[in-house]
């Protein structure tokens, strides 16, 4: 069966898997952004804690995904939960690193003048530092999106949701007429999600950047 025929016949199911795939990636990114930005804010002023936080996030990213999924079965069982947790761990480093880099890149003179205007530490952070660092933070999220979209495919080995299911189903049916179309459509679907997210986060970054520093 050609890829075209296969797509027409399985459109509904593919769409459903694609949505599942995109949803777990977006959930993981949302959690990773909250965690990464919070840890970044808590550590960017200091050398040692920020280094330790980055090292830990780096270790998560270095652990092979298959192994991390395997390790998470023990505490979390099978399914979407361990899949999302693993994706969060993989997404942390780029977000954390860019949060720290972005906050450190804010001109101290700007922060001082905000202090001179009577802003407290919290106000300076929320109204001056974070908006100035935001373009760099959101590019970190964009990088994380690319990493997690691909890794999410492996979640299928622990019964996670998404297009990875079709890749493994195809593998189990080597030699049948639909196997190649099934694996190919799932792989292309994942790449399509990647491209959409890449463009989406680029636009979101432009839209959410403070008007004063837009180019």
């Amino acid at each position, binding site marked *: 069966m050609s890829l075209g025929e296969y797509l027409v016949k399985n459109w509904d199911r593919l769409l459903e898997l694609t949505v599942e795939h995109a949803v777990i990636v977006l959930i993981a990114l949302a959690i990773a952004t909250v965690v990464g930005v919070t840890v970044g804010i808590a550590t960017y002023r200091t050398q040692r804690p920020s280094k330790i936080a*980055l*090292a*830990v*996030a*780096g*270790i998560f*990213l*270095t*652990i*092979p*995904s*298959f*192994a*991390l999924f*395997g*390790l998470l*079965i*023990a505490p979390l069982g099978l399914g979407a939960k361990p899949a999302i947790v693993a994706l969060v761990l993989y997404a942390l*480093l*780029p977000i954390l*690193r*860019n949060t720290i*880099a*972005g906050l450190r*890149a804010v001109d101290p003179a700007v922060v001082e003048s905000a202090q001179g205007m009577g802003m407290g530490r919290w106000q300076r952070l929320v109204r001056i530092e974070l908006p100035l660092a935001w*373009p*760099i933070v959101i*590019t*970190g999220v*964009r*990088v994380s*999106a*690319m*990493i997690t*979209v*691909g*890794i*999410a*495919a*492996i979640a299928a*080995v*622990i019964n996670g949701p998404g297009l*990875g299911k079709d*890749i*493994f189903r*195809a*593998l189990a049916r*080597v030699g049948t007429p639909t196997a*190649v179309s099934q*694996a*190919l459509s*799932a*792989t292309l679907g*994942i*790449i399509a*999600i*990647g*491209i959409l*997210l*890449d463009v989406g986060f680029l636009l979101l970054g432009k839209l959410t950047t403070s008007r004063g520093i837009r180019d």
Partner: protein
Amino acid sequence: MAVDTSVAGSAPADITAPTAQDADPLGGGMSLRAKLATPAVFAGVCVALYAWVQGRELDSIEQRVVNADFIVERLLQHLQLTAASTLLVIAIAVPLGILLTRAGARSITPPLIGAANIGQAVPSIGVLVLLALWWTIGFRPAVVALVAYSILPVLRNTMVGLQQVDRSTIDAGRGMGMTKRQVLRRIELPLAVPVILAGVRTALVINVGTATLATFVNAGGLGDVINNGLVQNRFTVIVVGSVLTAVLALFIDYLGGLVEDLLRPKGL
């Protein structure tokens, strides 16, 4: 640290790019204490794992996988996959990167770097399974998939590394009477080495991780152990496979960091 080399001196836009640094927790800034303590931690984890397994009653299915012969064989396969694919990546990507940064080919760089970023979204398991379906199973498709998956970071870092070399340094070399080839060999490449090495280390980490999936195309590796545990529903086997794989990947990354430090040209 790998990341710093490519970010330093460039616009914040560069921070956006997924780079070498992504996999670099223990990079060049490693203190002597960290250098010595890290392998001790890995050894400690392995000893703890061994003690834990010893304390458990293994049934016959578990014994078939959790034994020295089975694991060492898978470990060697894993290392072969990693080494072969990383060497191939270096042999292909570095010359190609040099070629693509010569005058005349420069306009290719921005789209290629964009492709490298999105290329990360290509699922490694998809590439692996497609190669198995289209071609064959075993060692060869596994290595081809690993190469395809890890070539972009090295290519990208080779190009970025060569392009960040200060134009005036190159002009100075030309002014001293060096040929273009001499400028490349004696000025551009040495100055680009730290960035290229960072890319190679990223590729190495990607390869050691992706080689875990080689089990799905019958190419062995430590993924065999994890997969055995999953298929037979044996918790002990899953833990042994996962912990060993994780320790191996972290150890290879650590070694990569040491080599990166050693090979960095003096004076940089």
